[in-house]
């Protein structure tokens, strides 16, 4: 897809760079703050290069927090499992809702949309009661099973599958592939960009999740990173130096995931059909 931006290419690049600055400044500021001491951060001055460059904040997080490796493992394990399950289950459901016909389809789709409209604040307590009844508080399954599907991304996958060319599937059906065969062998590989987007979001959602673990997990050994590192915040005193360092530690894995999946947003790799 070659584009010719004869006119306004310069303007376009200027705008791109300007917007990049707008998005980059807060991040750079947080990055530089993670190498500052608390006094310098709260002094309110606007400088991007730390006056007293220090690695103490990272040392505090990695070394003084004995539980850190454990929290990191918990977060990674939960996020990766949740992401894999979501990719599979949401795509299955999205495909069925986009392509197949079965009794109750319309109702189910409306329900999936409708549950998104109820704010989580009122379902938090009943949710907790259910997990308690299952004996899943303080456990990995309690953190994983209730979020192994996600109505938002079922909806998203459906919207993607609707656009897919039917012809390929029909041809595959003629070749004698079953529904499952079509789904796993033809449809899923085609959906790589959508799956990549979904993977980024589900991973991020799980990685950043705060309110759910706060309620479900009471044992520090089961804590996820956001929960563990949040102990640096207290009512009056916020250790912004640690929070900044912690937020960098949070952000890095997500950035890696994002960069990795970005490969699938390039024309040509994904799309082979659709003539």
């Amino acid at each position: 897809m070659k584009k010719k931006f004869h006119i306004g290419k310069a303007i376009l690049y200027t705008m791109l760079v300007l917007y990049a600055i707008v998005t980059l400044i807060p991040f750079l500021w947080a990055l530089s703050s993670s190498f500052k001491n608390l006094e310098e951060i709260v002094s309110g001055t606007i400088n991007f290069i730390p006056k007293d460059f220090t690695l103490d904040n990272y040392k505090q997080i990695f070394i003084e927090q004995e539980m850190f490796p454990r929290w990191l493992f918990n977060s990674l394990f939960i996020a990766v499992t949740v992401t894999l399950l979501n990719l599979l289950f949401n795509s299955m459901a999205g495909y069925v809702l986009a392509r197949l016909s079965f009794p109750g389809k319309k109702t189910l789709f409306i329900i999936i949309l409708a549950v998104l409209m109820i704010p989580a604040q009122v379902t938090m307590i009943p949710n907790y009661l259910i997990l308690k009844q299952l004996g899943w508080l303080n456990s990995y399954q309690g953190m994983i099973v209730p979020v192994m599907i996600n109505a938002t991304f079922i909806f998203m996958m459906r919207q993607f599958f609707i656009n897919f060319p039917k012809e390929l599937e029909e041809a595959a059906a003629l070749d004698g592939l079953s529904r499952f065969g079509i789904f796993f062998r033809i449809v899923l590989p085609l959906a790589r960009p959508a799956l990549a987007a979904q993977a980024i979001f589900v991973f991020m959602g799980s990685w950043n999740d705060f309110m759910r673990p706060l309620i479900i997990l009471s044992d520090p050994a089961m804590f996820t990173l956001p929960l563990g590192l949040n102990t640096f915040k207290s009512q009056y005193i916020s250790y912004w130096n640690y929070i900044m360092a912690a937020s960098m530690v949070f952000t890095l894995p997500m950035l890696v995931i994002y960069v990795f999946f970005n490969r699938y947003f390039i024309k040509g790799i994904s799309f082979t059909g659709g003539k």
Partner: protein
Amino acid sequence: MKEKISKKALREAGSSYLLLSPTLFVLLLFIIGPILFAVYLAFHKVELLGITSFEFVGFSNFEKILEDTRAKIALWNTVKYVIIVVPCQTLLALVLAATLNAGLKGEKFFRIVYFLPTLTSSAVLTLIFMWMYNQNGLINNVLKLFGFPTYNWLGDPDVALNAIMIMNIWSTAPFFMVIYLAALQDIPDSLYEAAELDGANTLQKFWYVTVPYLKPVTSFVVIMGLIGTFQLFDQSYIFSKGSGGPNNSTLTVVLLIYQYAFKNLGTMGYAAALAFALAIIILVATLLQRKFSKEESLY
């Protein structure tokens, strides 16, 4: 003949439900279950803590909403918020995605940089914004430089909500940008080639090929935007320390629900009623959106 069709339909229904089974399991147990419990709460006056009590009160929790001035203010704030934020973030996301998909040099770099706001944790974002929005902060300094009036961004009720809006658009647009980026990969080149043969320029191709093709995804983006903004909570909670002030200017419906559900004991039923009222409003907004966009394939 008739039998054959129904057999095929039966098989299709079977595989449908098999593929749906994980979804149905989680949906029933962890989503619909709690919601039904909330429905039950909405019709009762409840005390869940200690000596629990449930008293059936019919629709009185819903009637109370009509007399609750704070609920009206919260709804008005939220609607204002939705009307401004949803179109802005959708448009911004679409333009960003289209630009970053055009095969420009340095595209990869921009894609990563533009996504950073979504990655930055909300605690840090809040601090950064406190720092940028304060009286002697970055934004006021820039405004001063160009001779514009400066504002007390965080304190002044007239601008506090705007400050939150800007922050929200800036940090959620990249989320939708990624979805558009994914969707753009699926547009068949043949469509563009055909348009080029008709002599369409870049803008025309964007408008007549890209935008229509993205319709189902736009519909997703708008509906998710509606849901997300109608349920705005975090930012107004952080900015007002949970009170919704000054003068109710940052009070949103979900903040009000939260106050009733957790801060005051014994008003859980009313909170649930408010939540369903909100859900109905979102539903209506979604249907309106659907009507405007005339998308045939939503159901």
